[in-house]
């Protein structure tokens, strides 16, 4: 059977292509561990000895743990509340699509996907400071609200594929709509919750634009924003900068290494829907 044979030319070609991805990451790691002197000799070589001072200095300069904590809190709260609230709204819409109001709500939320954030950026800046939301709470709140457009789209598609017979059985037993949603439907949503959770997590963790325009207080800055704010102080010392970048990137990379298959399938499902 010829077709079972491993296609080595393509395998090798792909390995070479993957170097394009890996090379900048390799460079980030070695640069983070070198001293400026070593850099001037060769950019590419491995460091002679691991310079951990780059990291301690970067932690000190950027107040890394504060920023890490902020990013962590923002991401966790955003993901948890997005899952709990957005799925509930989608459930109400999905089970009432035959009613005009809910049908309208569906199209209302989904059409908001066409409104890019830069369009509403300027009014939102004014609004958040007016409501006292120019802080981490506001950031979490806006992620949950803005997520509705896309999440309703994928949740409704999924919920409508769940047969109603299960719910009807629960209603016959005297359960209320709340109980039915939390006890019967929500557990069934796990696959799509995973998708929404992963996409929301990546968004909240990596987003730069929303923190940039609404966070004003230095103590509440998230990791990407901190890298931006300290950029001007990094230009003289690239090793310090790269130590800082590496620390900012690595939490998500670690999560990815552990849950790689899960993350890829979650992202794929979100896009194919």
């Amino acid at each position: 059977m010829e077709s079972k044979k491993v296609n080595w030319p393509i395998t090798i070609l792909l390995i070479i292509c993957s170097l394009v991805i890996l090379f900048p990451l390799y460079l980030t790691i070695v640069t983070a561990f070198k001293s400026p002197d070593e850099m001037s000799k060769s950019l590419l070589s491995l460091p002679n000895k691991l310079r951990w001072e780059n990291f301690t200095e970067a932690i000190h300069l950027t107040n890394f743990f504060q920023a890490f904590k902020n990013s962590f809190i923002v991401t966790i709260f955003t993901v948890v509340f997005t899952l709990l609230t957005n799925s509930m709204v989608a459930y109400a819409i999905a089970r009432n699509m035959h009613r005009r109001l809910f049908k309208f709500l569906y199209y209302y939320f989904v059409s908001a996907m066409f409104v890019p954030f830069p369009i509403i950026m300027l009014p939102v800046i004014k609004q958040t400071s007016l409501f006292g939301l120019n802080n981490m709470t506001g950031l979490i709140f806006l992620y949950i609200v803005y997520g509705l457009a896309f999440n309703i789209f994928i949740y409704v598609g999924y919920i409508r594929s769940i047969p109603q017979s299960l719910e009807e059985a629960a209603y016959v037993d005297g359960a209320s709509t709340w109980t039915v949603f939390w006890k019967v439907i929500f557990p069934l949503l796990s696959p799509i919750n995973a998708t929404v959770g992963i996409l929301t997590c990546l968004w909240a963790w990596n987003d730069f634009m929303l923190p940039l325009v609404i966070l004003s207080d230095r103590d509440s800055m998230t990791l990407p924003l901190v890298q931006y704010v300290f950029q001007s102080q990094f230009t003289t010392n690239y090793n310090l900068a790269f130590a800082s970048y590496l620390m900012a990137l690595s939490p998500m990379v670690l999560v990815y290494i552990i849950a790689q298959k899960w993350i890829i399938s979650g992202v794929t499902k979100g896009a194919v829907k």
Partner: protein
Amino acid sequence: MVKQSKVYYWMALPAFLIFFIFHTVPVFQGMMYSFTNYKGYGDFNFVGLKNYINLFQDQRILASYGFTFKFAIVSTILVNIISLAIAMGLNAKIKFRNTLRAVFFVPNILSVLIVGFIFNYLFAFFIPQIAEKLGITSLTQNILGNPDLAWVGIVIVAVWQAVAFNTILYLAGLQTIPTELYEAANLDGAGKWKSFIHITFPLIASFFTINMVLAMKNFLMVFDHIIAMTGGGPGQSTEAISVLIYKGGFSGGEFAYQAANSVIYFILIVVISVLQIKFLQKREVDM
């Protein structure tokens, strides 16, 4: 069931209200401001269509549209070609498939801003150093410092980052094609290229549509890359529309003017997305 229906309102209407206040109201506020001379603070008056008339005569605005479209079109085409090629490679009978797939997906989980910072350094030091050794004089300078070439640097980073997501999507599409189809085509004497044109491409047409529309829309909204790499410079050669809105509206005292710019930008994005979907879906049917 009829008695329960009130609960559904309680589930959906608060979300509607909040979304309306924090998303729809800003859309209308932006439109309202676009007809005023508001600076972002203080009093303002309605000035009719003045902002819109000025927009179309403003070289800086026109240049930002020119740059954004050039960047978005080139990046969309490159990303789709490269990611389709990689996806087909990953779908072949290769070794280490899962590992390679995992590696190609890595850029999608990284912060665009930080990736931009890292590439900044590549363009500033690494590439010039290599170019000097190889004697390629045109690349011995940082391309991000060259007004004619800086956009290429941004395209490279954008493509590097965006290929990950589109590859995974194409791979999902390719995996829906039964291998028997290729075997049958093979028996009929169809070559690789013919199989691609007549089997692969028509069957993944819907994935092609999603990828083209999503990529184009994302690239038209480019922001992080620019802020990380050039800040819009050198000069104003890489000033994307969203960057201009941010800079002019946030700190440049052009709140109302950039609000008008946002309205035009919004209309353009909607029109382009709808046209793309219409055009590409029509082709899906034709094939």
